[in-house]
Every structure is written in C-alpha cells, then in structure tokens.
C-alpha cells in the first residue's frame, strides 16, 4: 500500500539530521521574510545547507513562500526563487499568485505546493491551482475527515493534510501586541517586547489559551490545542492522501523529533500491518500525551467536528 509522505518542520539545520533518523520523508523550511509561521528561521546559507543535509538522507526539502505579499517584496521574489532552484529545493510552498507568476518566469520547472492555510476547502479549487501549475494542494485545517476524503477522491493534484500540531486561527497585518503595549503606555519597551516568545491570549469564557506572536508578517494567533490524530490515520492512508504534515511551530526541537518517531511508526504500521496498528495506536497516542507540554492540550482539530455557518 502507498505510504503517505511524512513531512515535518525542523527548527534548525542540525535538527534535520535528527528528523531524518526519526523517519521524516520531507521537511518544510524557510524564513519569515517569505514564509509564514515556521518552526525555525533559515537564512539562505541555512537553506543551502539544509538541502544538502536532507538530500543526503533522500529527504525532500520544501521552502515556504506562502506570505501575503505587498508590492515592496514583489521584485525580490525572482531572486529568491532562482536561488532556491540553484540550491536544489524540491518545491516552493505558495499562497499568493505573485509567487506562481514569478516561478513561471524564472524557474518554470520548480514544483509548487498551493497552501493558503484556510482557503483550500473544495476539490475543484485544488484542481484549479493544479491547472495553474501547482503539483500539490495543502488542505485547510478546518475540514472534516469526510470532506478530506472526498477532495482526495476528485483531486488531480497531490493532497497534503496536517495531522499534528497547532494551526493558525488568525493573521493580521497590524502590530496588535505592539499596539496594545503602546496603548498601555509602555512605549519604551515595545520594540523589544513585542517580538518576545511565549505570549498567549486567555479566553475566560472557553478557558482557552491561544498562543500569539508578532513577526514581519504581522500578528498571528494560534489554536488552543495541538491536533493529534496518530490513532486515526487509517481512512486517509486507504484513500491515498499524499502527505501528512507535522507542524512544529512554537514547539521544542526534541518534542518535534519524538512526535516524528511516533508518527513514523504509526504510518508504517497503518500501511503495512493494519492489525498491529489497531493494536498499538492507543499506545502511540499515550506516548504523545506523555510528552505534551502542559499548556498545549491535544485534540482532533476539525477532523470529527461539525461546523455550521
């Protein structure tokens, strides 16, 4: 049975070696100048090194260029894309059509993965971006299992699904943390403080904690839980989903590596020895629960949830 690719976001070049040993098939890296909400910040030199390291293990490297671009960066996209082609990146992850247009101009053979995070919600639109040049569509996290399977059934492009980690709920161009500090009159400290790590919003009514951070792309607010469906992979493996992503953003390196190992085991068993997977899956889940940070409860995201409108 075809095994989905296990795609992980590393925090650094050295982490790629750990992830290779843990069983990752591919990594997604990048820098915040072009990419959104990455687990680590990779300069051009880092990207070049990361590609070398990963390819040594037969792992693929995808580079994030999925920011919402304003005019100021449009003219430099070509240079970065050319660089990525030269160092041998395996694909570019994009959301903004400006990236697609530039790839056509400067590196027409570069593979493209379409990922806007929230708007890949039906099979027709996944195929639309396929006709425009994308090889893969990364599905919105707000879909349930049934919708994912139906998209896969009709898809003419590869389908990537996030199976683990936090997801983005909100991105604003506004400097929301900096503005709040300024409103409080803490003017002098803002530049330093607004980029600090570990901030969260507390929602009293729901007793939820939403991680929040600011970077070059604005303010990002993240889901209160980490998705974990290590014990619910069967249907997607059977359907032939092409890639399972573990998103490590805002997590520790060692945690991401451990989770990768456990998913490696889960995917292998699920594809090759279903009976053993059924036997072991609760244990795999328990192993993740055991290393889960206290502030990050696990849930199953939208896979089994009803959403109305």
């Amino acid at each position: 049975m075809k095994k989905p690719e296990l795609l992980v976001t590393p925090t650094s070049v050295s982490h790629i070696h750990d992830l290779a040993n843990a069983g990752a098939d591919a990594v997604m890296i990048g820098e915040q100048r072009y990419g959104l909400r990455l687990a680590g910040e990779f300069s051009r030199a880092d990207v070049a090194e990361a590609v070398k390291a990963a390819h040594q293990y037969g792992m693929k490297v995808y580079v994030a260029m999925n920011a919402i671009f304003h005019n100021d960066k449009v003219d430099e996209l070509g240079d970065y894309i050319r660089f990525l082609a030269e160092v041998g990146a395996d694909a570019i992850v994009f959301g903004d059509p400006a990236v697609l247009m530039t790839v056509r101009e400067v590196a027409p053979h570069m593979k493209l993965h379409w990922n806007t995070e929230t708007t890949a919600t039906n099979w027709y639109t996944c195929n639309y971006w396929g006709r425009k040049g994308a090889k893969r569509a990364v599905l919105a996290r707000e879909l349930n299992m049934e919708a994912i399977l139906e998209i896969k059934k009709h898809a003419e492009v590869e389908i990537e699904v996030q199976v683990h980690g936090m997801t983005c709920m909100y991105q604003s161009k506004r400097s929301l943390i900096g503005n709040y500090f300024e409103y409080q009159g803490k003017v002098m400290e803002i530049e330093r403080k607004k980029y600090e790590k570990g901030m969260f919003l507390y929602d009293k009514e729901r007793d939820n904690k939403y991680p929040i951070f600011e970077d070059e792309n604005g303010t990002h607010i993240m889901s209160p839980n980490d998705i974990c469906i290590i014990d619910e992979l069967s249907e997607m493996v059977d359907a032939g989903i092409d890639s399972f992503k573990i998103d490590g953003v805002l997590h520790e390196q060692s945690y991401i590596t451990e989770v990768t190992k456990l998913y490696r085991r889960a995917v292998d068993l699920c594809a090759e020895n279903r009976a053993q997977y059924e036997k072991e899956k609760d244990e795999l889940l328990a192993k993740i629960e055991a290393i889960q940070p206290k502030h990050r409860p696990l849930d199953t995201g939208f896979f089994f949830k009803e959403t109305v409108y």
Partner: protein
Amino acid sequence: MLLKNDKISEIIDGKRVIVKKPELLAPAGNLEKLKIAVHYGADAVFIGGQEYSLRANADNFTIEEIKEGVQFANQYGAKVYVTANIYAHNENIPGLEEYLQALEQAGVHGIIVADPLIIETARRVAPKLEVHLSTQQSLANWKAVQFWKEEGLERVVLARETSAQEIREIKEKVDIEIEAFIHGAMCSAYSGRCVLSNHMTARDSNRGGCCQSCRWDYDLYKLEGDKEIPLFDENDAPFAMSAKDLNLIRAIPAMIELGIDSLKIEGRMKSIHYVATVVSVYRKVIDAYCADPDHFVIREEWIKELDKCANRDTAPSFFAGMPGYNDHMYGSHSRKTTHEFAGLVLDYDKETQMVTLQQRNFFKPGDEVEFFGPEIENFTQVVDKIWDENGNELDAARHPLQIVKFKVEREVFPYNMMRKEN
C-alpha cells in the same frame, strides 16, 4: 509616472474637472435598503442572495427580489452586484450552476467572488455576469492583481491592508478596475485568513458564520517556565483585536486622483438610516470634488453627518500607512449612535404642509427632529401636534411602522428621512 488608466481630469473652459468619476458602491441587505441606497445616490449596490454570500445572518434576497431590485436600479441607471464570496466546500458545489444562471437571468450586472470554483463556474454557465474578485482573496500586490487580470476578471477588490501608495503602484502597473473600501466595519485580520469563529463557536467564518470574535476581550499573558505572567495592570482595558470602523471621507479626493474605479461602503447588515446617511454624504463629497477639484474643501457638516449614524469609532486604517493603537478599540467595542432614525417620509402635501410619515422610533410633540434626503438640505424643526391616519390626535408616535401625520414647514419628499438626537 502617468496612470495607465483613462485620463482622470481635463481642463474644460479653463477649469479642471474630474472626467473619471468613480462609482459609489453601497451595501443593500434587503430590497428596501437597495431602493434607499439607489435613491440616495449610489451608482451601484451589492447584495447577497440566499446562498454563497458571506452574511449568513442577513435577511438576503430571493431570486424574485433580486429581479425586482435590478429593475428598480435600472430605472436609475444603477448596477446590482451579488456577493458570492464564500470559500466553498464540496457540499456547496451542487446547485451552484443553477444559482449563477438564475442571477444572470435576473439581470444582475456582476458577482463578487473569492473562490476559483465560483469564478470558473460563472464563466462557463453565466458568461454575461461580470466577475469581481472579493477582498476575501486579500489581494495586496500588483503581480497578484496581474494574475487575476490574466484570468479574465473585470475588477478586483483590494485587500483592506493596502495603502494609497500601494494602490497607486498597482494602478500604474495593471490596467484593471480597482474597487476599494471607503467606509464601514473592518476585518482586523487579512480577509479569508481568519478562522476564529470556526474554533470558538464552530461556525465557518469563510462561509458567512463570522461571530466577530475579534471584538471580544482577551487577557494577554506571557509564559515563563510554567508561570503565567499577566502583561496588563488592573487598570488596563483587556487585549482585543478590535479595529475601529473605516472612514475615508477626507481621503476621497486622493482616491479619485488615484483613479480608483469604485468606492465601496461596507454594511449589508446596517439599517436604511445608516445606508441613506452614508451614501448621501459620500455622494455629495464625490460630486463636489469632481465638479471643481482645485477649489474643493471638505465641509465639517459632512463629517458630522456621518457621525450621526456611527455606532463605533472610526479611523482611516491602512490608507495612510500602518494603523497604530489609535485605530483600535479597547474595553468597549461599540457606542450608542448620537441620533436615531425616527421616521420615513411617505408623502407630503404642499398646500396643507402635512407630512405622512412611517414611524421608525418613538417621538412626540415637542421633540426636535431633523429631516434629510437627496432633494433637500438638512433642516431641523420641533414637532407640533401629531395625528394618526384617521385624524385622531396622538400624545406620541409610539408604534413601529405606524402611519402618522404632522406639520412640516419645508417641503419634503418620499423616502426622505427623519431622525432625532438621542
């Protein structure tokens, strides 16, 4: 660099005038609001049908109502656009073709769309519909605009995050109609990239289920080890992502000179009083500027007029650059309007000076009221005796939609409105 688009102004008889007048585009949540918006001077309105639009809670138009709305608008030479700007899920695909065909047959001029599924389906089954790209695509650079032009779209609505300078660059580089927001509520996130409602209330924000979680209060903490450190003092208002409403009245001249093709007012959920007030003010600003741009001054009374229907503070947002803390609301997320809608004029008898008016809020003899409308200059007067339809004198106009009569010294016209200060 010269703007690529049509010439914006010309010298006529020694005086510069604007020859490229932008469209004033107004929201219309139902048929009554559509008629009011058009009557008060909108060049075009956008409405929502029963499906595929982003205001699941609005009362929205049936196909029959859309037909009637189009017929009404056509009498004024105004256009009707239908929003179909959800990000569709698989389950929304069945029925889409029939819906778009019905819109085309109803004579709708265009649709406002985000999802390529709907763009391509419209092209295939309803080719007479113009297709405008919704702000839900958060379009913020010229190259992405170029992409959508090459896809054959007639018009794009830019991301609300674009500045005047960025709009200018886009206009210079790509020859496509640009629609930009001038007034109304704002998403504080990049549109289409917010799923707060999905997480907090299991309602899909990109299919019209937005519950405005960005206007709720949150407490900001920092995690140090296992310790949660509050980043606010007792006296601080809580954290919020709440953006003040947009108000670009002072920027209209600049927007006209940029050659922006359509100036859009947000608010399909707003009342007819709101629609009438905002449309009539922007109508006056656009007309006055276009007639004599070099001697134009913004009148304080226009700015005050807009305030009469505002229930939130306003700000210019991204047009002038990055919004600061002053563009946000902390603590309270709305306020009472200074004025309320008191009645809609149905008829006026010039001889007896009696108005026939439909009551929309409580008023009584002795109240000072203000009349406004496209045919008249605003004026105030004190209400004297009030009668019901049958000539019985009333101590007050108490009942919603009740028909009442009283004396109004100056001539008023059907669809004129009466408001009073709170």
